[in-house]
């Protein structure tokens, strides 16, 4: 299956603005999408534990199973206020 990855803030600066698609095995979870990206961008490793995931307009956990065509947002730690 293919998922589209939408990076934000610091993660976007690391991976660039290109549309990111990754082909993952069936049953892959949000954390697997992150790992697939981190394999290409080693600087992401330090953000592995702190990154939050969003699918559509809702937060999901790293354990959430993905589906073909999903759009997965990667959110580094927040800094509002």
């Amino acid at each position, binding site marked *: 299956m293919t998922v589209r990855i939408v990076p*934000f*803030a*610091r993660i976007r*600066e690391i991976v660039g603005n290109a549309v990111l698609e990754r082909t993952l095995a069936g049953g892959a979870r949000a954390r697997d999408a992150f790992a697939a990206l981190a394999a290409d961008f080693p600087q992401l490793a330090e953000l592995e534990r*702190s990154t*939050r995931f*969003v699918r559509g*307009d*809702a*937060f999901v956990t790293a354990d959430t199973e993905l589906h073909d065509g999903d759009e997965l*947002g990667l*959110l*580094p*730690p*927040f*800094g*509002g*206020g």
Partner: protein
Amino acid sequence: MRYDIVDEPLEIEPLIAAVRGPGAGALVTFVGYVRERADDGRPVDGLSYEAHRDLALAELRAIGTEAAQRFDGAVVAIAHRVGVLGLGEAAVAIAVGSAHRGAAFDACEYAIDELKRRVPIWKKERYVDGGERWRENA
């Protein structure tokens, strides 16, 4: 109740207007500004904020609803700026109306604490010496 993510300079007055009412005997506001030094003392030239806009608005709404439930029906309005900000510009503004001051102070503190913790907004500090750095809330 009013929740905004805005590109233009923030104004507190529309937020105050949104939470005032015949039952609001108390009104508390909080405004966070861009200050001239980072936590480590490094001189700051300005900040840039960006947000996951839809999710940020949903989270602000949730915080306002929780504040009303926890603090005696307090009415909350929150606006956060995004884009490039200079020194002294307002980054976040909160107004809370409530029957009595205790609930208004508590709800205002709850709103800013929860905003910093869970609303998807990111801040990059730009320094006078030319460097820049993403800053995360603790």
